[in-house]
């Protein structure tokens, strides 16, 4: 197995693992956040606007970790620097 095959294989497997593992934490966190926000709205419907806005901002914060993982896996697949280096050589 030569170097370019190894790099390609490692990149693809790592990209899949990155997004798979990286999606677990934010999914659990977002589920918890939405559940809490829903029960808060059920208890205090008057504060709906504030809760919804804070929920969206918080969800964006939580989601950004998953987005980082996604960006890393996209970089590994589309613009992999090691792969480009091997191809250019």
């Amino acid at each position, binding site marked *: 197995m030569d170097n370019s095959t190894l790099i390609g294989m490692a990149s693809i497997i790592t990209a899949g693992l990155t997004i798979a593992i990286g999606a677990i934490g934010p999914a659990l966190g977002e589920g918890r956040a939405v559940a809490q926000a829903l029960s808060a709205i059920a208890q205090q419907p008057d504060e709906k*606007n*504030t809760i919804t*806005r804070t929920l969206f*901002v918080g969800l964006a*914060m939580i*989601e950004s970790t998953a*987005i980082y993982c996604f960006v890393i896996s*996209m*970089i590994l697949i589309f613009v992999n620097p090691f792969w480009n280096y091997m191809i250019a050589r």
Partner: protein
Amino acid sequence: MDPMSLKDISPDAVILWQGKGISLNATILFTWLVLLLLTLVSWLATRNLSAGIKISRWQNLLEALVSGIRNQIHEVCQRKTDRYLPFIGALFLYIAACNFLTIFPGYLAPTGSLSTTVALAICVFIAVPVFGVADQGLRGYLKRYIQPNVFMLPFHVIGEFSRTLALAVRLFGNIMSGTKIVAILIAIAPLFFPIFMHALGLLTGLIQAYIFAILAMVYIASATRTQQEKEEAARSQSETTANQTSLDNRKEIGKNG
């Protein structure tokens, strides 16, 4: 004009025209188009404004938009100020327009390129200290960095940079993932499914524009917080006195009745 192929990660890679040492990529072209469109629409809509009862449709639209953004800003920074309206409103309208125009075939959202989102995030990065210093002076602003004690200084500085990075990568990742998923679905199931993902992409685009603007506002509000706390204390005091007077009024009414 052929849209982005599956191999390209951002519209930066789509070179439309190449001159001597200068190349025009899709990001720059569509940014110009969006800016032109926004300017043209606002110019046409604000050409003959009227304060009367009869207003044009476009004025109605712009009034609804501006007052909506204004209410959101007032709710986040909890005081009635219009100082942040131009900056936050421009961020929101620009990102929302960029993301909404993807309904036109052949258009690539400039926000799907890391260069655009980093530029927007750097605008926020510069705007936070500018508004902070303008609000509470250089000393007051810098004091925020050593707030609990001086050991927190590195964490404040790291936080400043990491949230800027997060702001840029979040917008880029969301928009890029939307276009990428549509491109992949067109390759494997081209009949109906890309439409649903495209609709989801429009929703995500609007939410991301909202989140970008709100986060920028939250950061600016946190840099100008001490002022706000002072005002809040004053307001709560006046509120208690107002409550007292209303109670007194009610008592009097009860006495009279």
